[in-house]
């Protein structure tokens, strides 16, 4: 039997979402937001918040007052007593000192609960965030619970409604998103009558400078309407909570398919209203929503003012929680529908005036067309009145310059046409041909110089034709009325052609611009795939961004846990610690910030996080003398594309590096395992001998003669000696194969000293063995690491002893050849198997299962080779005539040997002579 009350995963998801843990497990420790919500100043939000805080405090919660405007009200002051208060941050701004909430102090203090008044407050310009609600977001992200206050007119989506009711436009708004994410919404209500009474008693704080403006605000009708708005907003919220609670528990509710809204935004001032309307609709449907701008060829001609407005609308939509996009295409309707289908949009919101722009040729209104082609998508047509949206600072671009040469050229073209026509006329061609000639001229002008000149050219052409070629000649008067038709046709044809060619030209330019953009992106993409190393990727990105967008660019990548600009490049701003701190913030939070945004707007550059599915890998910073240019949809899109490409390139580079490391590690692992196999092989035989001999001594004591016992003891001792040499070899091997460069200390060493210590170490092994040493009569020196070369000699001599009969001679010969020092160790045994001369040095590397009685089975010779390689020297083996093997070592000195001893001697003697001289005095 299934459990009847278990919610479906979708239901669970909805519930989890409503609890604010939208972003997965890492948000589990996100702080809770509680908003004390009211319809006007003076209803007692701050008072209630403080009362609530006091009871929390009494219950043992660690409460800190982050920022509260007391407005000098004694009752508020009384409530503040006994609560820990964060000292406000004093900010100097334009000669006055502003008190602000100290975000960093709060983050450092990290209380359980912090109180922050006035969620909608706008921060002083030098602070990190533009708005206080952004501070609150950061606190919540840091896991601190926040209690705050907010009035209904500050809710972004209600902003215009409030403005309509009260006639006061409130600039300080809080995105609905922030508001909706609050876990608790507490409505602080007071009947308007009581509020007005309090106002009269002077209990409501009204900033003096705004008193006059607010006079209208505190009218009873206003207050009633605002109160209703606040109550409704709260009711909606409660309804949503109930809904979510039911979804979480109940089983029979229908899980509605998700609605998705799309709103078309343009530069028209009505668009802002449209955006808010869409937002409200989306909220009431519980739908997500998108705002798009369709960039058509015409958009290229938008005035700077229009551009600024368009941008402001898109950003408004973003603030209200929409996903925004700019799509390009010739046909607004077709592009909108295409995009809507692509994103599974269920409802489209359009404004009447919006789509009317540039559509005068369409027989139907675009809204009609949209409705006709939208199939299963609902279309909402909203007629909005214009609303003033605060605009971005958009420097006025100079109007298209009056290009006088175009007009001169137009005149010349017409003159040429007239001359040609005069010739045709002389020759006796009909007037139709002359009209054609003029049309040709008009087409030429339209094509070369655009709309204005071409329209003028058509008019002038008609005039010229009239004056010069129709009777009566050289007058404007026309005898034959049928010429009017000719004029009319000529004019219409000329104008049509002019308009058409101008449009084609614009389209071509538009296509070209798009192509350039794509081309640049493609080029960067291609270059980046060929580049290895973060530094080079960064350099290429900086170059490409600078080239395409102008200004300066810098890439920041974390190194050793700290974000830093990759190159010591021209972009000087990147070296500024304050700028690096901005980059660090962007990196940590994965959000765009800096110039032109609402976060850290005082930074010199715009900072875009480089994000990959695996997380933020770096930050791309762009500085432009015209900072707002970077926020134009077009540029922002390019920047986003670039940052995605770069992020992917960096991630690819990291993955390559990782896989390279993994391969190296695998190789090292392979060597290690063959080494281990080889070592255990070498260990086995001496161990077997020791175990055997010692057990014999322990158990067979009585039966054993003194001579046998002695023999076993000698075996144990000698095999232990062999084991110890093996261990030394392993030690050298690890020294040489350490991941860092093998540590080699080369010094000038007399060869005989090396030979002497090797012979001393092999003392027992060599006992009784004739060894002939022939080092040149001069003192033979070699530039080597004594300990390592001694090991080589020990291994070679040990080998010679092991593989030759006990009484045969071992010869050691050394000599000098220029900068080379040579040393040979020869034996009189059976020699090497033919073909083994090179193989014996690399056996262990291949891990071959060689016969245990042949040379080079173990580590010994391989280590000799490794040591000689590390010295930049050589080791070789050959068989000698008359039987036996010869091993030759060649050492190459870096420079000449040290000063001749005689000179030192002489100098020293002089020294001592003067010493003696002095002592005698």
């Amino acid at each position, binding site marked *: 039997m299934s459990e009847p009350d278990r919610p479906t995963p979708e239901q669970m998801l909805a519930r989890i979402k409503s609890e604010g843990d939208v972003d997965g497990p890492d948000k589990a420790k996100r702080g809770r937001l509680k908003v004390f919500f009211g319809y006007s100043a003076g209803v007692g939000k701050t008072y209630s918040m403080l009362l609530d805080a006091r009871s929390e405090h009494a219950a043992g919660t660690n409460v800190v007052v982050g920022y509260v405007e007391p407005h000098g009200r004694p009752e508020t002051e009384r409530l503040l007593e006994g609560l820990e208060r964060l000292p406000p941050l004093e900010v100097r701004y334009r000669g006055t000192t502003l008190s602000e909430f100290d975000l960093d102090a709060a983050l450092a203090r990290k209380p359980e609960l912090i109180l922050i008044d006035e969620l909608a407050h706008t921060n002083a310009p030098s602070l990190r965030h533009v708005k206080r609600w952004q501070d609150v977001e950061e606190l919540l992200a840091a896991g601190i619970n926040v209690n705050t206050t907010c009035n209904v007119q500050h809710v972004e989506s209600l902003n215009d409604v409030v403005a309509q009711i009260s006639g006061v436009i409130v600039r300080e708004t809080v995105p609905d998103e922030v508001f909706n994410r609050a876990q608790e919404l507490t409505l602080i209500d007071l009947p308007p009558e009581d509020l007005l009474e309090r106002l009269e008693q002077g209990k409501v704080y009204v900033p003096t400078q705004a008193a006059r403006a607010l006079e209208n605000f505190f009218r009873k009708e206003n207050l009633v309407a605002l109160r209703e708005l606040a109550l409704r907003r709260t009711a909606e919220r409660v309804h949503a909570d109930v809904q979510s609670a039911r979804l979480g528990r109940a089983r029979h509710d229908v899980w509605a398919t998700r609605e998705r809204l799309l709103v078309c935004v343009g530069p028209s001032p009505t668009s802002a209203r449209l955006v808010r309307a869409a937002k409200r609709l989306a909220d009431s449907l519980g739908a997500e929503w998108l705002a798009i701008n369709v960039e058509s060829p015409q958009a290229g001609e938008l005035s700077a003012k229009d551009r600024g407005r368009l941008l402001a609308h898109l950003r408004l939509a973003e603030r209200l929680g929409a996903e925004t996009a700019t799509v390009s295409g010739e046909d607004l309707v077709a592009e909108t529908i295409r995009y809507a289908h692509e994103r599974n949009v269920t409802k489209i919101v359009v404004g009447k005036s919006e789509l009317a722009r540039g559509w005068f040729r369409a027989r139907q209104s675009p809204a009609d067309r949209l409705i006709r082609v939208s199939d299963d998508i609902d279309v909402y047509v909203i007629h909005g009145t214009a609303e003033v949206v605060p605009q971005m600072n958009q420097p006025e671009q100079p109007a298209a310059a009056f290009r006088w040469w175009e007009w001169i050229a137009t005149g010349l073209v017409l003159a040429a046409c007239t001359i040609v026509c005069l010739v045709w006329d002389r020759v006796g061609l009909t007037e139709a041909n002359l009209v054609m000639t003029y049309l040709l001229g008009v087409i030429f002008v339209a094509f070369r110089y655009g709309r204005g000149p071409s329209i003028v050219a058509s008019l002038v052409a008609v005039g010229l034709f009239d004056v010069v070629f129709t009777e009566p000649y050289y007058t404007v008067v026309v005898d034959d009325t049928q010429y009017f038709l000719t004029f009319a046709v000529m004019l219409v044809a000329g104008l049509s052609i002019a308009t058409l060619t101008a449009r084609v030209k614009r389209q071509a330019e538009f296509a070209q611009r798009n192509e350039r953009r794509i081309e640049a992106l493609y080029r960067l993409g291609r270059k980046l795939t060929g580049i290895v190393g973060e530094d080079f990727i960064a350099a290429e990105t900086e170059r490409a961004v600078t080239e395409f967008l102008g200004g300066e660019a810098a890439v920041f990548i974390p190194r050793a846990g700290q974000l830093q600009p990759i190159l010591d490049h021209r972009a000087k701003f990147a070296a500024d610690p304050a700028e690096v701190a901005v980059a660090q913030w962007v990196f940590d939070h994965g959000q765009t910030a800096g110039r032109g945004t609402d976060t850290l707007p005082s930074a010199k550059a715009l900072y875009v996080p480089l994000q990959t599915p695996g997380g933020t890998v770096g930050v791309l910073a762009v500085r432009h003398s015209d900072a707002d240019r970077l926020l134009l949809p077009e540029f922002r899109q390019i920047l986003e594309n670039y940052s995605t490409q770069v992020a992917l390139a960096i991630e690819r580079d990291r993955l390559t590096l990782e896989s390279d490391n993994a391969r190296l590690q695998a190789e090292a692992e392979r060597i290690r395992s063959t080494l281990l196999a080889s070592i255990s092989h070498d260990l086995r035989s001496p161990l077997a001998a020791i175990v055997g001999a010692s057990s014999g001594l322990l158990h067979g004591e009585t039966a054993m003669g003194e001579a046998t016992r002695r023999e076993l003891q000698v075996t144990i001792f000698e095999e232990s000696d062999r084991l110890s040499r093996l261990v030394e070899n392993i030690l050298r091997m690890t020294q040489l194969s350490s991941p860092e460069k093998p540590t080699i200390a080369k010094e000038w060493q007399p060869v005989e000293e090396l030979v002497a210590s090797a012979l001393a170490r092999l003392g027992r092994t060599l006992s009784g063995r004739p060894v002939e040493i022939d080092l040149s009569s001069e003192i033979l020196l070699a530039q080597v690491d004594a*300990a390592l070369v001694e090991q080589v000699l020990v291994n070679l001599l040990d080998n010679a002893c092991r593989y030759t009969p006990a009484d045969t001679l071992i010869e*050691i010969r050394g000599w000098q050849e220029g900068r080379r020092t040579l040393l040979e160790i020869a034996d009189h045994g059976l020699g090497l198997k033919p073909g083994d001369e090179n193989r014996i040095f690399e056996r262990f590397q291949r891990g071959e299962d060689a016969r245990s009685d042949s040379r080079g089975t173990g580590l010994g010779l391989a280590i000799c080779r490794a040591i000689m390689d590390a010295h930049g020297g050589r080791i070789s083996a050959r068989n000698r005539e008359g039987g036996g093997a010869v091993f030759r070592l060649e050492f190459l000195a870096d420079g000449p040997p040290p000063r001749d001893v005689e000179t030192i001697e002489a100098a*020293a003697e002089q020294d001592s002579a003067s010493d003696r001289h002095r002592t005698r005095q």
Partner: protein
Amino acid sequence: MAKLNEPQFSTILIIEDEPEIRRFLRASLLGNDYRVLEAATGADGLQYAKHEKPAIALLDLGLPDMDGLTVIRKLRTWSSIPIIVLSARGNEADKIKALDEGADDYLTKPFGVGELLARVRVALRRVPDQDTATDDPFVLGELYIDFGRHQVFVGENEVHLTPIEHRLLVTLVRHGGRLVTHRQLLKEVWGPDSVFETHYLRVYMAHLRRKIESSPSRPRYLLTEPGIGYRLASE
């Protein structure tokens, strides 16, 4: 016969954490009429050294509670007993550090009983102070040195040494078979401000060997401690 000159039952302090090595050292030393004190940690070792006044200390450099070098440093603040360091091959740098800190000699693990006893004997031998150095001739095998006359003989033949070579030989002889590091030798032979590097020392040693040794590659008197220094053969 050399044993007769030594005080019988000298106490030897072993500071070594591995019981197997301690067992071997104890057995070898007890069997040769020494008294043995065993400490498994540096702290215990220092305690014993203070209260039992051993004649000599054998110190393992790798102890569980403190660095061997620290033990030497602490011991040297109040005691001048000979310290012989026990260390594995390949740790030349550690050995040099230990010698610089005041250790007198070292034994490279693994070592045999013979080597151990020879080192202990050398360490127990009193070092004649430079000031009280006698002019009595020195004899070791064929080698005969007459300090007063600055004369050196190998067998019947007088060997002509340069002043530096002579000083080198005499310095090694005065240390009586104890290890003398490169740095020590340079300082004592060429003076404290010596600018010579160790390879000059090696070259001089090679010259000296050619004059004294019958086979310089298998020296009888002047022994090399690779990477560390030289010593005179003890017997």
